């Protein structure tokens, strides 16, 4: 650069011109992310044997297997949810939701909660869809009720619950009732106490000037890389805690009626199991009371580590830090009440 012939304009500039100048795009001083990625990838391939050797202990291997399993299992549902949310964001006009939902948010909450029954996926799919609903002008309270109820009350999950508990048909009804009650209560709670500034509206680059295809694929790319990154955070936390929490603690708590509910609720948060499979895990926790297992089924799809990371990424950390504990408290409360009545 220094040897380049100066144009008259550059020559006329003051001597400290270069020091204060903005870095132009493509300047060699700025690290190219694609180059960085290629370098890291090739280095990792070069040193794959030492890396494998370092991870050869059984504890490290089972940690990694669980980590990869959580990501591989959740990815298809995340992609499904992202495609659906991109379709909502690009092809469904905001006026549709204005007509479909009752105008008063207090009424829209239960309608949106019940509408969760039509999204046949697990919790990874519901976060991007709820984000798209908020962007499309749906009242946040209603979108949050949908976010909480969709992974718990859809037909796939309820069928799995019925299969897992063949001799306890009340469990399906109890799960449906307790999940819907918690979702609506959280929606109304947000309506009364929530402050709009806590819910960071899901920001994204605007695609205003572009066509439908560019906007759709731009939305898919942004959401997969964004939510996918937070999924990795959640999977790391879930695999770590699963490796650290010994199974013996569980059996120690099983006999105490109150403690057992709290312990299984905490276990649901830690394990971050997909809501389509958690019923089978609950069924295998035979030493616990039905109410404690109901708490596991109600809390799991609404609050867990993977979901917390996804919510923090989509709606902001300040929101997730308040929303998740409140949901956990209400979910435990409604599970205990529903369990006392129905089980």
């Amino acid at each position, binding site marked *: 650069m220094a040897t380049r012939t100066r144009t008259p304009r550059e020559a006329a500039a003051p001597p400290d011109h270069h020091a204060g100048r903005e870095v132009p795009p493509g300047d060699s001083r700025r690290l190219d*992310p*694609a180059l960085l990625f290629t370098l*890291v990838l090739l280095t*990792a*391939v070069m040193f794959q044997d030492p*890396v*494998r050797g370092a*991870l050869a202990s*059984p*504890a490290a*291997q089972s940690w*990694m*297997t*669980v*980590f*990869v*399993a959580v*990501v*591989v*299992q959740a*990815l*298809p*549902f*995340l*992609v*499904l949810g992202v*495609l659906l949310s991109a379709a909502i964001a690009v092809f469904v006009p905001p006026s549709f939701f204005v007509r479909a939902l009752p105008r008063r948010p207090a009424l829209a909450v239960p309608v949106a909660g019940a509408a969760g029954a039509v999204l046949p996926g697990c919790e990874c799919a519901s976060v991007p869809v709820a984000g798209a609903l908020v962007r499309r002008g749906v009242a946040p309270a209603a979108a949050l009720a949908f976010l909480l109820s969709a992974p718990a009350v859809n037909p796939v999950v309820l069928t799995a619950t019925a299969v897992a508990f*063949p001799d306890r048909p009340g469990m399906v009804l109890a799960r449906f009732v307790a999940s819907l009650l918690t979702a609506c209560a959280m929606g109304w709670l947000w309506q009364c106490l929530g402050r709009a500034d806590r819910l960071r509206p899901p*920001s994204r*680059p605007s695609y205003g000037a572009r066509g439908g*295809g560019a906007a759709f*694929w731009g939305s898919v*790319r*942004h959401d*997969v*890389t*964004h939510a*996918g*990154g*937070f999924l*990795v955070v959640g*999977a*790391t936390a879930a695999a770590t805690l699963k490796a650290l929490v010994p*199974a*013996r603690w*569980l*059996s120690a708590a099983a006999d105490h009626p109150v403690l057992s509910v709290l312990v299984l609720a905490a276990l649901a948060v830690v*394990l*971050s*199991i*997909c809501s*389509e*499979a*958690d019923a*089978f*895990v609950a069924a*295998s926790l*035979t*030493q616990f009371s039905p109410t404690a297992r109901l708490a596991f089924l109600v809390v799991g799809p609404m609050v867990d580590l993977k979901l917390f990371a996804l919510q923090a*990424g989509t709606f902001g950390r300040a929101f997730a830090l308040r929303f998740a504990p409140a949901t956990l408290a209400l979910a435990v409360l409604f599970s205990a009440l529903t369990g006392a009545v129905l089980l």
Partner: protein
Amino acid sequence: MTSALSPNRQTQAALLFLLGAAVVHAGLTDLHLRYVKAGLRPLLLLSGAVLIVTAAATLLYEWRRPPGDDGHGEPRVAWLLALPLFALILVAPPALGSYSATHTGTALQEPFGFPDLPANGPLRLGVGEYAARAVYDEGRHLRGRTVVITGFVALDRAGAPYLVRMTLNCCAADAQPIKIALSGAMPPVLRPDTWLEVTGTYSPRRTKDPVNDGPVPYVEVTHARPVPAPPDPYEG
């Protein structure tokens, strides 16, 4: 969130393409069976294909992009997608084995019923099926029969050998072991995680899982031979 180190759209396209290709590769080979149930395979292939198409579309629109529309608001957290990618293509961790089995209690549950078994010849049973029939059916259909069971070896703290299969409901995060205790003619050296095909007979003896006090039946081994790990290491 945007900084000089945020992955630009081309880098995101590369990440998405590689992740999609790794997922499709895992779905086409037996690799996915180490982590998830076989039933998830169509969804895995589909989502891998969607990721690859997204990468292609990103490059296409990037190519056509009007000058001046620079990438803004690109999430830095996207870099983390490289972690599962590296884990899948470089390490490909093995299916859960004896380490998880000895740290988790047996998940044996009473089945809905006991269908009749073939009347002749040795019985090929899964670990879960043998254990359930031995514990909850008092071995009624198993007495006097030769049974053949395949599983991997796990040793408890005292060094007692178990034949184990992990069961999956959805993915390896919810894997739980089912254990059978071994007695009788054992190979002289038992290494954890070796896959064995055990030929033996029903034994009424029982023990309790040291982790959760769950029921663990015995099998009286007459012959045991090492076998390669099956394509699907888990039982359904």
